[in-house]
């Protein structure tokens, strides 16, 4: 990205409903942090700094999903302030685990958790940023991979396309030399429909992929769900497998909603 007047590109980090883990990934890039801070101006990053500079910003990183009326308005303002807007993580990209409310009675949830539900204002749905404003790039993962974040920042600053693969976790598993847990153990593994990026950790730990990087490009989620049923999994189990951190991603929704008939 060319910066005006030769100044450093300005980066801002914004938070919505989330666990803070994806923005923490920037601070977890221990070997790169000081270099990044040298190459850009971190203009707004409340988790890390008291100094909060006003926009406009060259790159806005957005963590978290929209769950309140106020946040639905705030994201509109943020979009206007950011030349490039990038969502980081499953909450911002797919609504996050808190999107499980989308199939249930949010009012009942609030009454269950809070003594005074009348003090709480929240929307009935948790929705991804792209349902509210145009997004320039969506970085997947719960949490994101910090190396992908660094690659994304470098690419955006250089004005090139980031090298972020859109193939499935299966490719990473093969590359890692992990024995297929679906074949060998009959594990319910979402690897065939989940985007790579984590390094295929779960199968290496002897368990099926639970889909925290969300749908890969063109997944056949319906077919995988049917396969789970054909191989003896219970319907509720299959629905729960698709309804975790990226539950509201339409490619995963498609699989479970059809199953529920």
């Amino acid at each position, binding site marked *: 990205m060319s910066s005006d007047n030769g100044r450093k590109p300005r980066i801002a980090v914004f938070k919505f409903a989330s666990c803070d883990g994806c923005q923490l990934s920037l601070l977890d890039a221990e070997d790169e942090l000081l270099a990044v801070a040298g190459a850009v101006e971190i203009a707004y990053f*409340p*988790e890390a700094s*008291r100094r909060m500079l006003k926009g406009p910003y060259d790159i806005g990183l957005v963590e978290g999903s929209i769950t309140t009326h106020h946040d639905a308005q705030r994201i509109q303002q943020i979009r206007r302030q950011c030349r490039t807007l990038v969502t980081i993580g499953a909450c911002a990209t797919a609504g*996050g*685990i808190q999107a499980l409310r989308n199939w249930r009675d949010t009012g009942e949830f609030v009454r*269950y958790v809070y003594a005074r539900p009348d003090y709480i204002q929240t929307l009935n749905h948790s929705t991804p940023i792209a349902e509210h404003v145009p997004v320039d790039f969506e970085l997947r993962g719960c949490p994101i991979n910090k190396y992908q974040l660094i690659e994304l920042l470098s690419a955006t600053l250089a004005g090139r396309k980031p090298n972020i693969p859109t193939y499935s976790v299966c490719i990473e598993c093969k590359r890692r030399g992990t024995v297929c847990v679906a074949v060998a153990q009959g594990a319910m593994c979402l690897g065939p429909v989940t985007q790579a990026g984590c390094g295929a950790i779960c199968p290496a730990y002897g368990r099926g992929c*639970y889909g925290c990087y969300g749908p890969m490009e063109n997944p056949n989620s319906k077919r995988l769900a049917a396969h789970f049923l054909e191989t003896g999994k219970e319907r509720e189990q299959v629905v729960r497998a698709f309804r*975790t951190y990226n539950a509201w991603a339409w490619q995963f929704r498609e699989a479970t909603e059809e199953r529920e008939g």
Partner: protein
Amino acid sequence: MNVTPTAKGTRTVKVDMLARVEGEGGLLIRMKGDRVQEVKLNIFEPPRLFEGFLRGRHFSEVPDITARICGICPIAYQMSSVHALERALGVQIDPAVRLLRRLFYCGEWIESHALHVYMLHAPDFLGYQDVIEMAAEHRETVEKALRLKKIGNELVALMGGREIHPVSAAVGGFYKAPRKRDLEAIREPLRWALDASLETVRFTAGLAFPDFEQDYEFVSVSHPDEYPFNEGRIVSNRGIDIDAAEFEEHFIEQHVKHSTSLHAVVRERGSYLVGPLARFNLNYEKLTPLARQAAADAGLAPPCRNPFKSILVRAVELVFACEEALRIIDEYEPPAAPRATIEVRAGTGAAATEAPRGLLYHRYSVDSDGLVTAARIVPPTSQNLKRMEDDLWRFVPQLASQPVEEITWRAEQAIRNYDPCISCSCHFLKVKIERE
């Protein structure tokens, strides 16, 4: 922040977001002369309703889900949930699994404490807006801090596949237990981390601490033989000594209008404090001799009642966590099976473990299919919120003669003493000072 003069010479000071905390909220302080008239920690972190959607999930999915409450201390959420569910299901764990869980927690404490001490809290003491600004003048210190934090993260990743939301923790044990030689790879880095932690104690001992002491009720997990991580009774310096199953009889959560986090209080007594200060004061004897010596050399002895010194206590706990990790790696022999076989039964179980920020309580009920029917989670920050407000009521008058900018910064620093995690507690910070 902006200062708005009004017609009658009153002043309103607003800071739109309190920085260097995890999550979002605000602080309102209303002053008249030297007197504080109102203190409100305003938590506007949107509610995520975990307890709501945990119902209906299978118990085996719970530790992965609760990890998502907090990206900074996911292991704490995994540990409190697995222990509570093991009690609900009557599961006994292998002693080697127990050791591994302590080791896992050591990694999280190192990562989280290093983050807070150097990147979130030290800049307040040294007068920097953030760690990047601090690095310009203290490059070597910050580089060492990053390396220390990285070693904590490496230990977590070694055991759980990644630093944030690791994937190995399971009810009954781990999906995969590390081999002895896997762990040995991190022995040398941990020895370096131990030295860096001792240096951290010396570094924090040299900071200037405001003269401020409070008569706290300290609450922590306590174990007869160990500095607390996963297991023990819940104790306080005012006579509480209970099993986790009795937690809700003694501690209640109040819902206040200005907060999406509940405020926990000791029933009939009021605010209390959890976290490093409480652990240190209640479990000092169980620290390693080296950690105790480091504390003594830094002039730190129990009871420490100055919340600003929590940064020093975190440094002492870094020493402990590094030593404990090294001890466990030396002793470790892999368990016969990485996790216990579980026979599903209906039941209810509660557990408390020590997150870096303090006691974290979970309770679950499961039915005979292993599905969760009830869930309750009380994070450390919601237990400390009332205490943070109480500190400000007493601390801010000491600052009354200072300019508003200074009051604001010091008030923020006093909040950051607690390393608040608002993402967790809501399950902060915007400072506003109104002064007449």
